[in-house]
């Protein structure tokens, strides 16, 4: 039996969950729990929140607009640098830019605002450069969008990947050293003090992405993803919406870059490789392409497993098991195998293209493995339903194809598109696999 909750209950549950979560983080961050695992917990939460944001932004692009872009690491890099450059305290410039005579920017926004407005200025000083980082990245993304968005799927992927690599070389360029510090790390810039900060910022940004997806624009994005030609026919301006999605996604990638800079306390261009983009992409896949809440869950799971839970695999002792095969690197092998299994067998990821909802959660909880008796029947029913859905999909696909072909014919023969087309009931499906 499906349960439907009242909106009020849902709102209350959400508020309580968020409040509990924030209190937990606050308490753990301030050392209210004994046990050093909590330190790792906080680290994972911080990093997880940052990657949740960038994964959500990538999902907006890849999952909701259908633009396969692999430039995320490059945009994060840019966001991280543009945040760090403007918040290094004046006194630290000489040590940070030791090879470039203290650099050419000799001030820090944080300090300037702090002098004027006190503690409020301090936070504003962190906040403004962060927004600026997002805007700068969005601006660059807009410039890139003009040529790149003309490309289709894999070409787009490889072109954006190329841009990310170019950006990386650019930021390491010695000639720009007085600003970017060339190959050397940027450090000593102002960072957040409490783990609550990245969680809240990432939370707000993800909420904005979520709202965007459920707006008219979001529906336009999805229409483009599902069928570009149909979307255009409906009057959706393809380039405008695609570039909009690209720019917004980059803006949030920039913000998450700035947060990452704060988290790491030092920043250099070297780690922002294609590998990093791949990891973000894998987070999106694990969570489910087309589900923002999936990306969030995926990010926390990914970070926690990679940085914390599976670490024991490298040191030879994990879950009480000791083995010679557990030597450095084993963690990553296990991790990669897990990911391949998800890609191959659970291609829909954890959430599929659904979002988290309390209704689903409650129903899921009620149908949890506890009620094992009903299992075999349920499995059968499930597989039946899946099979049915698959057939229906194939039929729809074939139909759509025929329709398209027909409409093209109509187009060429000059008959207006709006006349209802005769539908054929018999559809022949060619099984691609079978012979």
């Amino acid at each position, binding site marked *: 039996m499906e349960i439907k909750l009242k909106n009020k209950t849902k709102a209350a549950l959400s508020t309580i969950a968020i409040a509990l979560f924030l209190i937990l983080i606050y308490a753990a961050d301030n050392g209210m729990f004994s046990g050093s695992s909590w330190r790792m917990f906080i680290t994972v939460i911080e990093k997880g929140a940052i990657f949740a944001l960038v994964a959500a932004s990538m999902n907006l692009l890849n999952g909701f607009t259908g633009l396969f872009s692999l430039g995320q690491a490059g945009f994060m890099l840019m966001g991280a640098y543009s945040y760090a450059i403007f918040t290094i305290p004046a006194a630290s410039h000489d040590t940070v830019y030791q090879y470039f005579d203290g650099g050419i920017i000799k001030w820090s926004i944080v300090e300037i605002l702090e002098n004027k407005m006190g503690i409020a200025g301090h936070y504003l000083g962190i906040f403004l450069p962060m927004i600026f980082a997002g805007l700068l990245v969005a601006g660059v993304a807009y410039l890139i969008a003009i040529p790149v968005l003309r490309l289709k799927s894999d070409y787009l992927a490889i072109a954006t990947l190329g841009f990310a690599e170019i950006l990386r070389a650019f930021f390491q360029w010695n000639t720009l050293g007085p600003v970017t510090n060339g190959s050397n*790390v940027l450090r000593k810039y102002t960072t957040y003090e409490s783990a609550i900060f990245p969680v809240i910022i990432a939370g707000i940004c993800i909420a904005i992405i979520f709202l965007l997806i459920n707006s008219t624009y979001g529906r336009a994005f999805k229409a483009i993803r599902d069928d570009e030609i149909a979307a255009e026919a409906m009057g959706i301006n393809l380039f405008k919406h695609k570039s909009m999605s690209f720019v917004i996604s980059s803006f949030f990638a920039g913000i998450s870059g700035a947060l990452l800079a704060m988290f790491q306390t030092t920043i250099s261009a*070297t780690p922002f490789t294609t590998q990093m983009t791949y990891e973000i992409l894998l987070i999106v896949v694990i969570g489910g392409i087309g589900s923002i809440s999936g990306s969030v869950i995926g990010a926390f799971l990914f970070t926690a497993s990679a940085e914390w839970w599976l670490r024991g695999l490298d040191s030879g*002792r994990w879950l009480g098991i000791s083995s010679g095969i557990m030597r450095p690197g084993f963690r990553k092998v296990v991790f990669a195998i897990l990911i391949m299994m998800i890609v191959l067998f659970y291609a829909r990821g954890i959430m599929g293209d659904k979002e988290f909802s309390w209704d689903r959660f409650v129903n899921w909880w009620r149908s949890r493995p506890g009620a094992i008796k009903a299992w075999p029947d349920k499995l059968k029913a499930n597989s039946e339903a899946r099979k049915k859905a698959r057939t229906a999909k194939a039929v729809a696909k074939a139909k759509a194809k025929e329709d398209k072909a027909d409409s093209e014919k109509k187009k060429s023969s000059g008959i207006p598109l709006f006349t209802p087309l005769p539908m054929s009931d018999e559809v022949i499906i060619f099984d691609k696999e079978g012979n």
Partner: protein
Amino acid sequence: MKKITVLSLILMLAMTAFVGCGGGSGADEDTVRIGVFEPASGDNGAGGKQEVLGIQYANSVQPTVEIDGKEYKVELVIVDNESDNSKAVTAAESLVSQDVSIVLGSYGSGVSIAAADTFAKAGMPAVGVSCTNPQVTADCDVYFRICFLDPFQGTVLANYAYENGMRKAYCLSKLGDDYSVGLVNYFVEAFKELGGEVVEEQFPDKNSDFTSYVANAKKAGCDVFFSPVSTEAAALIIDQAEAQSLGMPILAGDTWDSNVITGAAKGKNVEIVVTTFYQEGGNPEFDEGIKAWFDENPEAVTNNGGNTDLAAVTALGYDAYFVALEAFKAAGSTDPADILKVLPTLEVTGLVCGDVSFNETGDANKSEAFVKKCNTEDGTWEFIKKQTAN
């Protein structure tokens, strides 16, 4: 089905966090933990492993320490920082969360700089073993180090080059690598001051084609090829230098003092000169001890690159371990905060790479470097001289 798999997987993983890692906090009363923060993979993997070997050997020599009248067993907690600045932070955090009392490492300066703030935030004392970039200890109260610094090393190398009649240097560093970029910078500064001329270039990471860089050095008519890069790139550079008959000596810093280099240079017509921390034979007792240890531990030999040639960083790792033990004794406690208090005034003697005491920034007061030359016939290092500052 899917739900259950996912759910059980997550539960299982989550359990390990609190059961597996949490086990650390419930460790034996009489154990003191030393965190080893070293790369085991990535660009500096080879060097990092050699450094860990020194620490492990020291641990086998002296597995216990007496702190405040009580005998403690010393346990090493080794994490891999993957030679990656972004992974370094969480690796450092995982050390802190496993209740170590002091951290040793790392090989490669970038990761140490990246982790410095994490250690500072946790009040965790850290002793750098072979990270020579000045930024590691600058503005950081918890980071100390037992090796010399790049400004010193750069000057020594520049002096050596100039004294031997080299007037034009080709300097190659790796893009995005703090260590090589920093050392080249100090070398260039010192070399120009002496009246030399330099050509500077950088290669991007993942690059394995050094043909053009060697050709560039030849084209520019340089007298010396200075490239204090990681050993991975070094082997490729040596190979190309031979293929194109470079015709000028190759000069490098401490990273090149490794059997990777002697292995690559063996039987080739190249001239390689490096500055380093230790010369094999400087302390016969240590040399013999560690060779015997190698004989018993085939795995250690694998980590050392397949033979028992000593790297200077191994000797330094050995020293670092004893510095940590002395710090425990002086503090009379295993609490990081107490150890942090005694480190600035700590003086350790009887080490293989020279006595250690720290100045106010936390750097070791060391003012001598060993200059060595590679004997390409039998693949060993030949001692040239001990060089002090100026």
